[in-house]
C-alpha cells in the first residue's frame, strides 16, 4: 500500500509538471533558489559550530529550538493554508475497501514527494551537519533527523485531516480564511517586534547571557513535547547525556506511534464522512436592489450601481476581499512602526541619532505605499469573479460600466481608510502640520493606481484564489504574472503621481492645500481616463477575458 500511494503521488506530481513547460521551469527556478538558500545556511551553521569548540551545549539548544519551530510550523501551516496540498485527499479513497490504518503510513510518506516535504527533509538532515567532527553524535543526529522529519509529516497530516473534517461547511471555511489572515498579520508584526527586542538584548554582553538562559529554558521544555523530542536526541548526544537520550528516544517513538494511530482513526472518519454539510446563511435584504434603487441612480448608471453593490456585498461576504485589507495596511504598519521606533534607539550622543529625514522618509514611504496598494487592489477583481464574469459579457454590460462600478465600490472602502490613516499617523507622531501634505500625496497615489489598474486588469488576468478557496492559497504561475502586472502597474502609477508628490515635499502650508486640490482634480482625471480606456479594452477583449478565466478555473478543478 505504501509503494502504491508513493507511486500515485509521484505520477500526479510528474503529470502536473508535464502539463506546462512554464510550470516546470518555474519549479526548477524555485527549487534551485531554495536549495541554494538552504545549502548556504547549512554550511554557515556547520562552519559556525565547528569554529567554536566548547559550545556543544549551545549548539544543542539551538537545534532543539529550531527543530521545534519546524515541526510546529508543519502542524500550524495546514491550519492556516487549509486545502494545502490536497493531492492525496483522503476523501478520494472513500470508494475503496481500505482502512485508515492501511492508508496512514503511505499518505504520511507521500509528503516526501512534494516540494515542501523535500526541502524539509534536506533541512532535517542538515541538523546533523554541525557534528561532522564527531562520528558518534553525527550518527545519532542522522537518526534524529529522520525521526524529526517523520514527526513533521505526522503532525501535518493529523492536523490537516482533522481540520478538513471540521471545516466541511462553507461558512467555517470562510471563517478559517479570515482567521489565517489575522494570524499572519499578527505574526509579521510580532516578527518585527521580536527582532527589535533581540537587537536590544544583544547590544550588551550581560543581556547576551540572558538570551542564552532563555534559549536553554525554552529548549529544556520543548524537548519533552512532540515538536522538540526528536531534536533533543542531538542535544543529548552532543553534551554526552546518554540516559536522557534514551528517555527522549523512547518518548519520540511513543509520540510517533500515537500520532500514526490517531491519524489512522481520523482517516477512518474522513473515509466515511465524505458528504459535505450544508450551512445556509440567510441574507436579510436584497442589497443590490437597495443601492441601485436610489432615486438618483438612473439610465446608464443603473448597471454601474448594481456592479458596485455586488462588489460591496463581496467585500462583506467573501474572505478573499477582506484579505486585501491586511495587505493594504501591512506596509504602513511596518514602515511607520520602524520610523517611529527609530526615535527611541539608545544613543550616547546627539550625532548618533537617526536623522529626522530618514524617520520622516520611512513614514512617508509607508503611507504612500499603502495608498498605491489600495488603488492596485482593484486589479484582482475580475480574477476574483472567475467565470461568474460571463454574466457581464452575456448581458452586454459596457466595459466602462464594469470598471466604474468596481472603482466606486473600492473607493467606498479605501477612501475612508486613507483619510483616517492619513490624518492619524502624522497626528500620532506629533507633526499635525504634515496632515495635508500626506493626504495630498496619498490621494494622488491612490487615484493614479486606480486609473492604471482599471486598464491593466482588463489586459492581464492572472490566476488567483478561486471563489470558495482560502484567500491565502497560492497558485502555480501566480507569482510570475501577478508580480509582473503588479510591478508594471505600480511603477507606472507611481511615476504618474510623482510630480505632485515632489511638490508636496517642498510645499509650504498653503501650497499643501493647493496640492491636495490638484491631487483630487488630476487624480480624478486619471481615474476617468482609466475607466474609459480600460472599458474600451474590455469591450474588445471580452471573449478573450472569459477564455482566460475559464482556463484558470478548469486547470484547478479537473
Amino acid at each position: 500500500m505504501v509503494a502504491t500511494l508513493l507511486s500515485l503521488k509521484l505520477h500526479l506530481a510528474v503529470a502536473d509538471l508535464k502539463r506546462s513547460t512554464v510550470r516546470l521551469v518555474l519549479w526548477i527556478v524555485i527549487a534551485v533558489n531554495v536549495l541554494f538558500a538552504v545549502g548556504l545556511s547549512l554550511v554557515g551553521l556547520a562552519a559556525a559550530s565547528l569554529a567554536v569548540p566548547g559550545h556543544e551545549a549551545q549548539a544543542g539548544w539551538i537545534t532543539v529550538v529550531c527543530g521545534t519551530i519546524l515541526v510546529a510550523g508543519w502542524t500550524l501551516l495546514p491550519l492556516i493554508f487549509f486545502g494545502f496540498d490536497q493531492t492525496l485527499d483522503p476523501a478520494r479513497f472513500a470508494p475503496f475497501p481500505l482502512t485508515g490504518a492501511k492508508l496512514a503510513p503511505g499518505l504520511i510518506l507521500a509528503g516526501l514527494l512534494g516540494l515542501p516535504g523535500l526541502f524539509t527533509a534536506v533541512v532535517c538532515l542538515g541538523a546533523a551537519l554541525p557534528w561532522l567532527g564527531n562520528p558518534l553524535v553525527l550518527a545519532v543526529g542522522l537518526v534524529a533527523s529522520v525521526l524529526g522529519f517523520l514527526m513533521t509529516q505526522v503532525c501535518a497530516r493529523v492536523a490537516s485531516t482533522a481540520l478538513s473534517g471540521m471545516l466541511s461547511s462553507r461558512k467555517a471555511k470562510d471563517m478559517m480564511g479570515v482567521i489565517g489572515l489575522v494570524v499572519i498579520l499578527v505574526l509579521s508584526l510580532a516578527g518585527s517586534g521580536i527582532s527589535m527586542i533581540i537587537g536590544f538584548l544583544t547590544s550588551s554582553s550581560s543581556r547576551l547571557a540572558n538570551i542564552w538562559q532563555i534559549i536553554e529554558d525554552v529548549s529544556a521544555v520543548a524537548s519533552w513535547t512532540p515538536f522538540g523530542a526528536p531534536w533533543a536526541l542531538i542535544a543529548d548526544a552532543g553534551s554526552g547525556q546518554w540516559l536522557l537520550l534514551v528517555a527522549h528516544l523512547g518518548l519520540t517513538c511513543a509520540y510517533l506511534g500515537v500520532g500514526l494511530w490517531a491519524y489512522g482513526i481520523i482517516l477512518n472518519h474522513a473515509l466515511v464522512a465524505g458528504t459535505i454539510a450544508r450551512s445556509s446563511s440567510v441574507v436579510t435584504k436584497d442589497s443590490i436592489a437597495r443601492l441601485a434603487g436610489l432615486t438618483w441612480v438612473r439610465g446608464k448608471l443603473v448597471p454601474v450601481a448594481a456592479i458596485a453593490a455586488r462588489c460591496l456585498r463581496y467585500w462583506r461576504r467573501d474572505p478573499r476581499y477582506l484579505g486585501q485589507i491586511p495587505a493594504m495596511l501591512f506596509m504602513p504598519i511596518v514602515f511607520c512602526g520602524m520610523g517611529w521606533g527609530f526615535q527611541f534607539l539608545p544613543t550616547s550622543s546627539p550625532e548618533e541619532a537617526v536623522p529626522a529625514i530618514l524617520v520622516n522618509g520611512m513614514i512617508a514611504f509607508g503611507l504612500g505605499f499603502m495608498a498605491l496598494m489600495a488603488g492596485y487592489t482593484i486589479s484582482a477583481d475580475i480574477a476574483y469573479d472567475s467565470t461568474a464574469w460571463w454574466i457581464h459579457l452575456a448581458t452586454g454590460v459596457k466595459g466602462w460600466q464594469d470598471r466604474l462600478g468596481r472603482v466606486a465600490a473600492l473607493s467606498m472602502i479605501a477612501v475612508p481608510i486613507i483619510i483616517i490613516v492619513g490624518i492619524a499617523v502624522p497626528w500620532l507622531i506629533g507633526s499635525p502640520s504634515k496632515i495635508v501634505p500626506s493626504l495630498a500625496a496619498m490621494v494622488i497615489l491612490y487615484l493614479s493606481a486606480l486609473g492604471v489598474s482599471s486598464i491593466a486588469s482588463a489586459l492581464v488576468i492572472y490566476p488567483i484564489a478561486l471563489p470558495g478557496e482560502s484567500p491565502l492559497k497560492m497558485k502555480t504561475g501566480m507569482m510570475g504574472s501577478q508580480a509582473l502586472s503588479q510591478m508594471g502597474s505600480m511603477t507606472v502609477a507611481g511615476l504618474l503621481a510623482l510630480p505632485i508628490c515632489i511638490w508636496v515635499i517642498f510645499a509650504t502650508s498653503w501650497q499643501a492645500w493647493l496640492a491636495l486640490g490638484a491631487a483630487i482634480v488630476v487624480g480624478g482625471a486619471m481615474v476617468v481616463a482609466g475607466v474609459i480606456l480600460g472599458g474600451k479594452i474590455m469591450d474588445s477583449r471580452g471573449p478573450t477575458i472569459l477564455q482566460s478565466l475559464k482556463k484558470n478555473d478548469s486547470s484547478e478543478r479537473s
Partner: protein
Amino acid sequence: MCDILSSMDNDAPDVVATMPDNVSQPMISMRGLTKFFGRMCAVNQLNLDIPRGSMYGFVGPNGAGKTTTLSMATGMLKPDAGQVWVTGIDVWQNLTAVKARIGVLPDRLRLFDRLSGQELLTYTGLLRGMDKTTVAQRSGDLLTALGLADDARKAVADYSAGMTKKIALACAVIHAPDVLVLDEPFEAIDPVSARTIADILGGFVRDGGTVILSSHVMDTVQRLCDHVAIIAHGSLLAAGPVKDVAAGMDLESRFIQLVGGGPEHGELTWLRPS
C-alpha cells in the same frame, strides 16, 4: 407539447449554405463557423439555421463542439472564421443589439454565488438595463414559478445543483428575450423541476419564442423538441425536424448510428456476481 411537435413538421429549414434572406428569416443562422483551440479544431465549417418559433435540440457526444458553437452564437466566444446572424443581425458586428435579444444559460460557468438567489436575479436584470420596478416584479414571479421562493434569500453557494440550474435559467429569461440559448438546461435537474422548466419553455415557444438547447439525453430532446441537430467532432451530421432526422428510428438509435457506436467490445465473461 405534442401539438407543437406536429405543427413544426412542415417548415423544414434548409441547411444548404445560402445566405439568410430577410423574407423567411431564421432566428439564428450560422455560416462556416469555425473555431480552433490551439491546433485542435473544435468546430469545423458549421452551417445551421434555427427557425423562428422552434424548440431546437442540439445533441452530440462529449467534446463534440456544442458549447463552443453556442458560445460563438451568443457573442461569448469569437469565431476564427464564419458568421452568425440573430434575427438577421450580424452577431459580431452588433454585439450589444444581439445580446439584448438573447437569454443565455451557459454550462460549467460559475455564478456570483455569494449573492442570494434574489440578489442574483436583481443583479442580472439591472445589468440588462431594465428598470427597477420591472426587475423586482419579474424576479418575484420567476422565483415563485421555479419553486425557489423559499430559498430566495439563501446564498446561491448553498444551493443544490438543481436549484443552481434553475436560478441560472431565471437569469436567462428575466429580460423576456426573443431567443433562449440553453446549454444543458436539464442536467442535474429532478423530474419535478424538469417538468416545470419544460412547461415554461413550451409556453415561451407557443408564444412565438425560439429555444435552442443542448442535451445528452436523446429522450428529452425527442419529447420536447421539434427540431434537432446532431454534431460530432465539430461537424454537423444531420439537422432538421426531429421526425426527418430520426428517419423512422427512435432518436437515440439514429444518433448512435450517425455518431458511430463505441469500439467493438469483447464479451466480459467474468462480469457476474461472484
